């Protein structure tokens, strides 16, 4: 029984890492992305796994596929939109099949807690004809990971392991087991399988389809059935299963472990044993449509939202609408409270570049990272944010359109630039786009919590490595107008960006300051506000610094500010802006 084994509270991501390790994984590659990031960070703490950050998700899948062909069990990890980047390799990896087991873990983000869309990875499974496993809690996250490697090898296919935010970031109890030692099988060249020339590829497609048939049958083995109440049968998977159990503990439930291929016939027989068949699934009506296409009468999205994350309450509401439960007592309305949008951190080095752009006036294409928050008040400077690296190409297009009435500036973080921005910058130089690219180099992948990347000089395991020299890279690409500035230097940043914007043709400004959170937390001598000197102009408030707070004191009918010295990192930005010089280093108290 479980008492005899070690138990631990693990998040879904930690459990997946544990599962991969127990499965004897040898190579793991990932690009950080919420909510998937912690998986590799957990995995690197285990021995005997070559765990590495990739430049981007496609590279991660390339690396994992290569490792797999070399006979080592391999894992690639990414968030849902990362699979878009990796899709090229992913789609064809379905044809090549694998050497040793290859699991691609993809974390979806229903509700978009930290994402730009809420695409449903199950649709990729169907398009790629690749099996997809879907755990419903931490224990299953570990178990399904291990299962994924077995399925991969057994069916010679990559396997998608789909998590969601609520799995990845939910801690649950997991029973820990030992690592299975799986020897490296070695690379066995097989051009007809691994070289996807059209002639060879044509030969692989039927193999894939045949494999799918076998997988469909196999998927039936991965269902669990419970409950005795036959008035309704519920088909579900993943975290919605937990909500169903919460609301209807006694209901008859068919929980799928593999949601692609869908074990349609198993469901058909399940449907036969219940009065009504209901599918509870997050996001797309994936199972529902598959079942309907198979002629099975099923209800689903008519009662459960297609957008956002499900919850026990929404599931309850759906069941209530279906007449299965009493409606909830009218949901209590929250008392009015303050809106609290996220902000760039106190001392964030991204602040001034955006502050400058707002001052200078520009059409700003943004990118994916902390700095996307610059789209919100008070910086409110970003005009677009679409996908990793899109800022530069979009800027090029915007400039080419002739429709921008102000200079076009792309802003992109260091990691995002290396992830997807470099080809676009090459394009901008190649086509001599009249744009300015501001590379916000904070020396880390900050948004996801401070990971290393090829520009930081360190690997995931903390070893020193060659760092990409961004200025040299830009020069090599052909950027002639290149500025490197300290974004804590307001004037230098302002004028570098202005000068770059004034340059005709492509120009690059690299702003460099380490993130205040990583690799080390920066907490220098804080500043304070001399209330007697403060004239309440509130100019500092335009930085959006969370350490700058309002006070009840006023000056000429405006509110003065104060600084939370605990939060203040001593970056000096507000002090640089303050016209009455009311913001001073704390040492000057009383002097």
């Amino acid at each position, binding site marked *: 029984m479980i008492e005899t084994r070690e138990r631990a509270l693990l998040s879904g991501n930690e459990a997946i890492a544990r599962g991969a390790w127990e499965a004897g994984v040898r190579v793991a590659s990932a690009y950080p992305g919420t909510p998937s990031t912690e998986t590799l960070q957990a995995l690197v703490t285990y021995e005997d796994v070559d765990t590495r950050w990739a430049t981007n998700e496609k590279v991660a899948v390339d690396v994992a596929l290569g490792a797999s062909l070399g006979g080592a069990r391999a894992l690639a990890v990414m968030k849902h939109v990362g699979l878009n980047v990796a899709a090229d390799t992913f789609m064809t990896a379905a044809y090549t099949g694998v050497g040793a087991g290859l699991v691609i873990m993809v974390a979806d983000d229903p509700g978009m807690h930290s994402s730009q869309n809420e695409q449903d990875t199950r649709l990729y499974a169907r398009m790629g004809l690749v099996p997809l496993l879907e755990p419903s809690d931490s224990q299953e996250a570990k178990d399904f990971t291990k299962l994924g490697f077995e399925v991969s090898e057994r069916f010679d296919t990559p396997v998608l392991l789909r998590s969601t935010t609520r799995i990845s970031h939910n801690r649950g109890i997991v029973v820990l087991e030992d690592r299975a030692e799986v020897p490296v099988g070695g690379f066995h060249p097989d051009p007809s399988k691994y070289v996807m020339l059209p002639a060879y590829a044509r030969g692989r497609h039927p193999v894939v389809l045949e494999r799918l048939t076998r997988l469909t049958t196999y998927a039936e083995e991965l269902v669990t059935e419970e409950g005795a109440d036959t008035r309704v049968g519920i088909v579900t998977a993943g975290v919605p299963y937990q909500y169903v159990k919460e609301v209807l503990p006694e209901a008859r439930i068919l929980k799928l472990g593999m949601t692609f291929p869908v074990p349609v016939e198993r469901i058909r027989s399940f449907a036969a044993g219940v009065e009504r068949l209901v599918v509870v699934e997050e996001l797309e009506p994936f199972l529902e449509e598959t079942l309907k296409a198979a002629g099975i009468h099923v209800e689903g999205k008519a009662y459960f939202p297609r957008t956002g994350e499900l919850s026990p309450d929404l599931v309850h509401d759906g069941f209530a609408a279906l007449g299965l439960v009493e409606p909830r007592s009218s949901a209590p309305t929250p008392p009015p409270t303050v809106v609290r949008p996220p902000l760039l951190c106190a001392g964030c080095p991204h602040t001034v570049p955006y502050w400058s752009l707002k001052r200078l006036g520009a059409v700003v294409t943004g990118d994916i990272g902390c700095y996307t928050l610059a789209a919100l008040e008070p910086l409110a400077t970003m005009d677009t944010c679409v996908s990793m690296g899109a800022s530069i190409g979009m800027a090029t297009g915007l400039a080419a359109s002739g429709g921008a009435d102000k200079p076009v500036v792309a802003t992109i973080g260091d990691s995002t630039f290396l992830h997807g921005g470099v080809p676009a910058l090459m394009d901008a130089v190649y086509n001599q786009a009249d744009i300015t690219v501001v590379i916000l180099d904070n020396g880390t992948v900050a948004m996801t919590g401070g990971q290393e990347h090829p520009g930081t000089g360190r690997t995931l395991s903390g070893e020193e490595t060659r760092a990409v020299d961004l200025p040299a890279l830009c020069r090599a690409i052909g950027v002639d107008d290149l500025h490197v500035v300290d974004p804590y230097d307001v*004037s230098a940043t302002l*004028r570098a960006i202005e*000068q770059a914007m004034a340059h005709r043709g492509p120009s690059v400004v690299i702003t460099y300051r380490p993130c205040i959170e990583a690799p080390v937390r920066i907490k220098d001598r804080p500043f304070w506000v001399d209330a007697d000197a403060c*004239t309440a102009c509130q100019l500092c408030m335009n930085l959006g610094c969370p350490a700058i707070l309002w006070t009840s004191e006023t000056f000429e009918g405006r509110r003065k500010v104060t600084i939370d010295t605990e939060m203040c990192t001593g970056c000096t930005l507000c002090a640089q802006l303050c*016209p009455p*010089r009311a913001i001073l280093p704390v040492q000057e108290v009383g002097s």
Partner: protein
Amino acid sequence: MTIVDIRPHLREWAMPHVLCAGCAHGIVGRAFLVATDRAGIDPDRMVVVAGIGCSSRLVGYLDFCTLHATHGRAPAFATGVKLARPELTVAVFSGDGDGLAIGGNHLIHAARRNIDLTVVLFNNEIYGMTGGQVAPTTQRGAIASTTPRGNTEPAFDSVALMIGAGASFVARASASEPFTLERIFTEALTHRGFAFVEVLSDCPTYFGRYNRLGDGPEMLAWLTRQDSRVAEPLAAKRVVDHLPIPEAPPGLDLGVLHREERPVFTGRRSG
């Protein structure tokens, strides 16, 4: 604090003034006018003496008795005015070259005498009126029309100079902090004795252009950047890393840096 409308203190018929767009000298002049008002000075009894240079041209627009004197000699003219008519409030506007190069002698001796003057020294690190030549306050390495390869001489620290010379009120402020300027000018004008206020100002036309420091807005921010309260924390947090960050200039201490009560020279027995 009362809001002071400075337009009544301007010779509106002479406006607009001759200074370049974005030159911070006007900000200083405005703060000075506010200070004269706050200090309760009767404009009929206010005399502002100036030397030669951009900053000195400013006095022509101030509706006081204004004496646009010769290059560097404003402290001497002011000494004459003040000694001849002690009930007048006398101030001097001087540039860095005006006050510290050609007029250095007059400045130190006025300070030594502790005559009741307020000297405002506009430091824009360059000779603006003559077209951007190196000044005694130009930082080492800076480009000027006469230091095309960078200035090899060290710059004057006028505050240390003035304290050494005996000024009884010595302050340094920046054109980027107008409210501080108003306060310091008010204190300087009401101080009995020689009051010296160095104001870090800027010259976008020459110094800014030669040294790629931008126009008026950028140079105002650059001025702020010189403040030791900003410069030193920034220098302290400099991290060794893979990207070359331009060396930060050393910071300058700002504020009222010296104040003492000393006998005031009046040239009279009753002094």
